């Protein structure tokens, strides 16, 4: 199972805790993980990526294994440590600085 860590706002929206486990069929990619996450928690649809283009929302970041994977291709394989469940796939909201 892949461990996905959600930001607080999305935890509340989806009614889940900090870590959500998802199962993907086939290669573990950003697209597959997000597809599985949204399928299990439809309230998250549109909050991390565009409904249609699947493009990441500008102020959402994806980290794993101390790397920023935000701009990796959607279908690129995730690190083996993520695929095997040893390391989490982190979804973050960009820091706000002085805004809001």
């Amino acid at each position: 199972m892949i461990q996905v860590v959600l930001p607080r706002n999305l935890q509340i929206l989806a009614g889940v805790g900090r870590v959500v486990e998802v199962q993907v069929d086939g290669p573990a990619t950003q697209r597959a993980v997000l597809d599985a996450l949204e399928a299990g928690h439809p309230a998250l649809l549109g909050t991390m990526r565009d409904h249609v283009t699947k493009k990441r929302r500008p102020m959402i970041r994806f980290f794993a294994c101390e790397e920023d994977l935000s701009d990796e291709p959607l279908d690129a394989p995730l690190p083996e440590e993520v695929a095997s469940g040893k390391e989490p796939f982190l979804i973050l909201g960009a820091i706000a600085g002085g805004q809001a």
Partner: protein
Amino acid sequence: MSGVRLLVGTRKGAFILTSDGSRKKWKVEGPHFAGWEIYHLKGSPADPDRLYASQSSSWFGQVLQRSNDGGKNWEAVGNQFQYEGTPGPHQWYDGSPHPWEFKRVWHLEPSLDDPDRVYAGVEDAALFETTDGGKSWTELPGLRNYPTASTWAPGAGGLCLHTIVLDPKNHGRMYIAISAAGVFRSDDRGRTWVQRNLGLHSNHIPDPDAETGHCVHRIAMHPSRPNTLFMQKHWDVMRTDDCADNWREISGNLPTDFGFVIDVNANEPDTIYVIPITSDSHHFVPEGKLRVYRSKTGGDDWEALTNGLPQENCFVNVLRDAMDVDTLDPSGVYFGTSGGQVYASPDGGDTWNAVVHDLPAVLSVEVQTLK
């Protein structure tokens, strides 16, 4: 026993304030959706326990929430707002063409007779409709495809469709307002439109009397007299008595005719309320005094209402969706400020009390009168 329920949207969540018919003691619940901007909440006139809320964030985009029990429990419903076809450009701040992009829902207007039907006014300006209680949203594209749409330009707050007014006597008729395009009327439930801005005069556009480009901030109607509408424009308070075919200025003796809100007393169709704001560069009330102005003559003659409102060192703003009236007798009047206060008057504006002092900045206030 009768009572009222205030639905308050803020920069950091929603709050629900309830009171009995005396409107003296209040129960405050919230924040719902903490940390999110709640541009608007509104209840269905056909089923007061059916509420809708527009929840959004720069990080996570748009979410639509629905409650079936008066706000005790909420569920996220559909949040896909897809413009029909390939949207053409509107005008950007610098005059260049800019593609239509969905940003957020500014205003939700439930149908008068069907709790599952709701209209949503969005930025970039367009009108959407749901007929299944918010599960799916479909654009009514006749508005965005209006011949002048490519010339519409955003105000400082964006190109937003922020006001939707439904005619209770003619179910096909509705009005919307866009900053900064103006007022539009439909007689077929939003399928086709005519722009209705004759009589508006705006010095901040190249042709002050142009039919398109006016920064209308808010329009209001009394349900017993739907041919009459009142408008707070960027500058000027206006009135029409012929379904928006012609507008005339009623600013009269107001200290400034810039402002955002305007509303009509529920029991007196000629009694209207505005809150003058110093100017578009200040966005706070004049002279450090928070004053509601009331006209009992349908405009032109205005009196300041100050009893219970701060009259020194007050520098708040009141945004366009942040005032409402209840339908009790006497009619209650409510508004929320950028400083997080919600004020209530149980007597048509004669006296005021702060229901809460320290909420996040208030974006919208809607009241439901509960029987």
